[in-house]
């Protein structure tokens, strides 16, 4: 019976674990080398990294991705990347004010004659969105809608590791080939077409372990292969259909190239560094109170543990004369 109980407990845990994740055919995301500083019950965000990540967001991501749930004041609130104890009220923080003032937004309140003016953003305003609405965003991005990044680390299995893996996971130059196809057009002329082929087996992420992926992916125009993006590569796969590589095609081309941003703190802007920083920033943005959550948690756990010990001794004292 002990054995059965052991089995039931194990199965229960497995069922719980499985129910929590149900990802598609995408490659499992991984953390950057050395892991995340915010991992574990005591882990805290590396605020230097979050600050750099905000720079990457502003200079790269923000041209297409909104963060509607974030306000400029959040940057200077306790637990935020630009919190300054000298300014307990984030709205007084000169750095935060400066960040806000750099963005021009359409005022939400009408002026004296009932029109809406453009004005510099204030700390109480939400982050400026690149597009006024979804239609505008789609029109500017070939029909694709760049998702809002406010809670993206909570909205994807893998969280910050997913963001990091996706950003560094695009095929390297060496794995991309171009093929010219000549077909006969309607009036007998020769039409040449350029085709982008991904040699999946050549990609660094597949080097170790799987030698399955002998073949090429035909990349659709305006779409980019990424092994971490949930999708189905079978229709584009020229090779054994039983071994189509994991991942999918997304409308976002690779964004991070070495030196794409010039970090204010002098850190070298490698692709991996920028991806790690912006993932850390999005991790903070997804839950600005996470540091407070963990510190409150520590106090709560200690309190409950002491209470449990006291109650255990009380229980044994009260029951000491009773057979049960």
């Amino acid at each position, binding site marked *: 019976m002990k054995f059965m109980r052991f089995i039931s407990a194990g199965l229960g845990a497995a069922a719980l674990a499985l*129910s929590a994740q149900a990802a598609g055919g995408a490659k499992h995301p991984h953390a950057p080398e050395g892991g995340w500083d915010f991992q574990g019950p005591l882990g805290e965000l590396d605020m230097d990294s979050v600050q750099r990540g905000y720079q990457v967001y502003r200079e790269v991501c923000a041209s297409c991705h909104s963060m509607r*749930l974030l306000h400029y004041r959040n940057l200077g609130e306790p637990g935020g990347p630009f919190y300054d104890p000298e300014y307990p009220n984030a709205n007084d923080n000169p750095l935060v004010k400066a960040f806000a003032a750099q963005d021009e937004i359409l005022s939400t309140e009408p002026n004296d004659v009932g029109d809406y003016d453009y004005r510099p953003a204030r700390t109480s305003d939400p982050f400026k969105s690149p597009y006024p609405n979804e239609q505008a965003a789609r029109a500017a991005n070939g029909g694709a809608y760049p998702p809002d990044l406010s*809670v993206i680390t909570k909205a994807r299995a893998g969280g910050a590791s997913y963001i990091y893996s996706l950003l560094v996971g695009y095929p390297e130059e060496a794995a991309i080939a171009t093929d010219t196809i000549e077909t006969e057009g309607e009036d007998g002329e020769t039409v040449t077409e350029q085709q982008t082929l991904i040699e999946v087996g050549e990609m660094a992420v597949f080097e170790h372990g799987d030698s399955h992926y002998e073949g090429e992916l035909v990349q659709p125009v305006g779409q980019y292969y990424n092994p971490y993006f949930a999708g189905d590569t079978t229709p584009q796969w020229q090779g054994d259909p039983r071994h189509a590589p994991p991942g999918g095609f997304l409308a976002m081309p690779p964004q991070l190239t070495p030196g794409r941003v010039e970090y204010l703190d002098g850190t070298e802007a490698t692709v991996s560094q920028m991806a790690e920083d912006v993932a850390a920033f999005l991790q903070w943005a997804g839950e600005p109170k996470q540091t407070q959550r963990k510190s409150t948690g*520590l106090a709560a*756990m200690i309190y409950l543990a002491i209470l449990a010990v006291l109650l255990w001794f009380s229980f044994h004292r009260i029951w000491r*004369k009773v057979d*049960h």
Partner: protein
Amino acid sequence: MSGHPSTYEPKTGFTKWLDSRLPIVRLAYDSFVDFPTPKNLNYWYTFGGILAVCLMTQILTGVVLAMHYTPTVDGAFASVERIMRDVPFGWLIRYIHANGASMFFLAVYIHMFRGLYYGSYKAPREILWILGCVIFFLMMGTAFLGYVLPWGQMSYHGANVITGLIGALPVVGDSIKAWLMGGPSIGNQTIQRFFSLHYLLPFMIAGVVILHIWALHVPGNNNPTGVEARKDPEGLKKDTVPFHPYYTVKDAFAIVVFLLIFAAFVFYMPNVLGHADNYIEANPLVTPAHIVPEWYLLPFYAILRAITFDIGPIDAKLLGVIAMFGSIAILFVLPWLDTSKVKSMRYRPVARQFFFGFVVAGLLLGWCGASNPDDPIIPMGSDKLVVSYTDANGNEATQTYDEYEPAATFRDQKVEEGVDASIAVQKAPAFRFVHLAQILTLYYFAYFLVILPLLGLREKPKDEPTSIHKAVLGSHDRAAPAPAE
């Protein structure tokens, strides 16, 4: 306990005055202080108290959340995130409420399995058991309604699946569905009525909990031996201890240990029991790849999807709905299905094997519910490649290959000949999740409808102790047991 005389004696002038008008202090004293409780209750019996804490936690946090929540399709998602970001300790309140639902179900399942194992549903506790089933059913309804409120992708598409099930019911289905959704589809009117009902149902649960405790206090607690506490004053004294302080302290210890686990989820992995897709705002036009309910509903979801065949005029979908609701409805009549006179499975060696099988079946059903029904568990053979082409006579023809190279060569050769040819994968036969779910569903129903009714008539139980007092004597690890009195 019925027949146990009240021992409450009001001491002050005010309590005497009150006692002769509204004996509420007497009621509380008799129910929660002096109440005679079997002295051999183990930790599985602490989950009643744990569940009371869960219900109160959910109501308290829920009332606060309702102050900040906006039940509209445009505002719901943002208002939940606003609670997480701008309401003081809003993140804590919301995470307690969201994880509290999971903890509530974890506790209720343990509580129910405890009742199944020790035969707590048998006479004279049938009403107590049925009221518990009512609470469980209301809990599932409340949890479903609550899961819709954050208005994420799983909220919306989960609600679509569940209301679709109700629509499958014959004759009345469509009307009930339209009434639930407040219109022909899920929209603003749905979220508003779900919010209203989500606020209502917990108070109905609280009402049934009062009846549940009342029905418990008439026959008194069952216990691990299944032997009733003796009624005569001498025997009662030997078999039981007063609820306070003996069980207040034991329950308090168990509750705090439970809260430690609860807190570990709230503070360190608040989103692990949820689905990432529910942090994507609901979009009717984009359906998630896999729609799965919360973990605590997975076994029932697996039963629903296990029925893939029609029986006579009843189609598979309706049968699935019937099986799913039937799996809950069957619990209500359990007291009359189990024919054994022996309550506790401690003394039913055969039944107990089937019981542990039932626990495993429940957990495996959860696994099936979380998985894609068509995914193989045990593959039989390997997938093959089929090249389809048009042969010389213009007929469709196929050729099957194990290896990719020859298949591709054959296809290319056909294409060069000017014939349409393509390669497709032929899945190998396999034992799939849907098959496992079907076997487990069969066992689930057989346990109640065949095993328990027949076993009670055929099984030879072990000897039960003559009393609780006898059962605990010497069972304790102390060498010389001190007299209990």
